[in-house]
């Protein structure tokens, strides 16, 4: 029997790479997004249109998936504002998707998983540990994800493992936009590259690789951890006189 994985936010970016990888690894993959099914969704992936922050959204996803052995909470949004500038609507948007959505999905799959076994991988962020400027709500929402990850691991073992991945700079359309808006896009890009010891930015596949591994039996003793994948960026001080 096929094992089923739910990947939230599989329409693009990191989520899409995870969908592709898990399909390749033989998982039956159910994914979702707030829009209609993307035309380029890989064959075999099951699309559910819905918002994980709402009860209708997660219920539809669960009903399409049936019993699941893996849950990957990847869906996320960001609002680029400081605390002073953030509105109630900004707060609701970020917390609904990044926090409530992750919570909803975990709560929905855990009762069966606790009996039958399974693994959860949440996508946090290095920003939940060290702050990205003007991303206050996003940074806070990712710290929520890290702490929830540990709580689930502690409360719902031994059959359930729960871990988080903290990506750094992953080159998605969102990151490309940031360079395009810089005063000097070329200088901005080379400066950012120099802050990555491995000499490149992350790719969505880098995150998908670890998700895939965390869902295997190779990782059967790993639970409650948050792993940083950032090409070494946060191992270095933000102060690098060589880059002034």
């Amino acid at each position, binding site marked *: 029997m096929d094992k089923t994985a739910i990947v939230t936010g599989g329409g693009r970016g990191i989520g899409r790479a995870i969908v592709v990888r898990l399909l390749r690894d033989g998982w039956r993959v159910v994914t979702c997004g707030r829009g209609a099914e993307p035309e380029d969704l890989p064959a075999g992936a099951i699309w559910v249109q819905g918002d994980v922050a709402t009860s209708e959204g997660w219920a539809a996803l669960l009903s399409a998936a049936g019993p699941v052995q893996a849950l990957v909470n990847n869906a996320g949004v960001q609002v680029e504002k400081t605390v002073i500038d953030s509105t109630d609507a900004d707060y609701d948007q970020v917390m609904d998707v990044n926090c409530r959505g992750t919570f909803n999905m975990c709560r929905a799959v855990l009762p069966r998983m606790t009996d039958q076994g399974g693994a959860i991988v949440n996508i946090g962020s*290095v*920003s939940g540990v*060290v*702050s*990205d*400027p003007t991303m206050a709500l996003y940074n806070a929402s990712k710290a929520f994800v890290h702490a929830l990850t540990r709580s689930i691991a502690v409360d719902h073992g031994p059959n359930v493992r729960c871990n988080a991945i903290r990506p*750094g700079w992953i080159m998605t359309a969102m990151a490309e936009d*940031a*360079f395009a*808006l*810089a005063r*000097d896009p070329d*200088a*901005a890009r080379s*400066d*950012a590259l120099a*802050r990555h010891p491995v000499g490149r930015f992350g790719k969505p596949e880098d995150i998908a690789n670890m998700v895939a591994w965390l869902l295997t039996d190779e990782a059967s003793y790993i639970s409650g951890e948050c792993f940083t994948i950032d090409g070494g*960026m*946060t*191992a*270095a*001080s*933000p*102060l*690098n*006189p*060589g*880059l*002034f």
Partner: protein
Amino acid sequence: MTLEGKTAFVTGGRGGIGRAIVARFLREGATVYAGDLTEQGSLAAHDADGSNFVKLDVTSETDVMAAMERVTGEQGKLDILVNAAGIEIEKTIEDTTLDEWNKSFAVNCTGTFLTSKYALPLLRVAAKSGRTASVINFGSYDGFIADPGLAAYCATKGAVHALTRAMACDHGPEGIRVNAVCPGYVDTPMLQSFFKGEGSGGNGGDIETLQKAVRDVHPMRSYGSPDDIANLVNWLAGDEARYASGQLWVLDGGLSAQVQQMKL
């Protein structure tokens, strides 16, 4: 005055940060011993400050034993030990000689070990008074994240962090608290040397421009002064901190709270 009646020993007590700690302890009413290689220390000028100078190489077991014997004879107890002596080698591991590596560990780690080891009997006496004794080690934010070209220094500070927790576990039951202060960029001779160093990007160029750039990366828009560090050391040394132990206290103007600051 929060430290009246207390005796304190500060290694590196004539250096940039150590000097500020000595001055603060004296203002708070403590009897202070300042250990250092020379009476002048790393600062260009030194005013008489009322501390008791102890000529001390923290890597020498003989020196350390003699220093603690002197405190035993003159005070009979030690309430506060601050391990502020430290050096940094500005190199990658490939460029670091074995001698430089060993010297880094000798001063930053072995020194902390030796002074703590021989101060323990005196710290126990102080703790029997009903007030806790306090050891304050010097870690660094570099023990958590790396500055480029400071490999041995980063490694020694990581070791000090682990030693701090181990000492806190072992000697807490005796009423001895052990903490580490982990500074970021502080305006000391060590930092000025870093500004001038080849690995820093300074390369003997415009130091003021470099200093401004360093300030601007900090959320507080400045790097620290030795007094900023002395403020925290003073608090950890005193009775207000009687429940604080085994912790690594980062003091860096918010520097390491941020992710890399991209030029966007």
